């Protein structure tokens, strides 16, 4: 019975920590200035918070069938969360609602300018090279 009490306590700590991460994400969603920094806040409960809550749940349930299900939930979440984050981040970048004044450097804008220049320059590029 001693072991049960210890496992329950650890499970409770995990659950509370996960809920605290959710609350921190809520606070960050309200306070942060633009989409990209809010997405950093959103990644927190989706990864570490969820893993902690699932761990707490597994420590309480303690049967093989349920633990395998919880492992699957964790794996699926870890596989899918970056996809959504990447799609949203990629869409948000060219918009103007990003606070450029808070950026230290922006090494992506050079890359995008280069691609645009390549695309714009492609049709005219042929003549000066071959006429020599």
């Amino acid at each position, binding site marked *: 019975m001693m072991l049960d009490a210890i496992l*329950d306590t650890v*499970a*409770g700590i995990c*659950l*509370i920590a*996960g*809920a*605290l991460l*959710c*609350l921190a*994400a*809520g*606070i960050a*969603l*309200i306070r942060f200035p633009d*989409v990209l920094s*809010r*997405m950093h*806040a*959103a990644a927190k*409960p*989706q990864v570490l*918070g*969820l893993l902690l*809550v*699932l761990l*707490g*749940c597994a*420590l*309480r*349930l303690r*049967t093989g*069938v*349920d633990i395998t*299900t*919880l492992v*699957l*939930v*964790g794996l*699926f*979440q870890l596989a*899918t*969360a970056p*996809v*959504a984050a990447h*799609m*949203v981040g*990629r*869409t*948000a970048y*060219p*918009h103007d*609602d990003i606070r450029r004044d808070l950026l230290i450097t922006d090494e992506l804008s050079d890359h995008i300018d280069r691609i645009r220049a390549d695309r714009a320059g492609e049709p005219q590029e042929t003549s000066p090279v071959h006429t020599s």
Partner: protein
Amino acid sequence: MTVIAVIVTALLVAAGGLTLVRIIRGPSILDRAVATDVLLAVAVAAIATEAAYSRDATALPVLVVLALVGFVGSVSVARFASRRSSK
């Protein structure tokens, strides 16, 4: 365990409330998509906490489904927003 359940519920309700404020205030559709993702994470945490509290695994398949299809919403919103902005 009841004390823990009450604390976790209070924290999650506060988190969900703050997230709802962001969903309502916007400003862009992407903010709302991100906040909806967080709300989904809060809901998953709530379901898992309920399962842990009552030691009842009935709701666990719901978690599997949510973890699998949860990202579809924001991906479609992102695609929709990117197509609209390029026009």
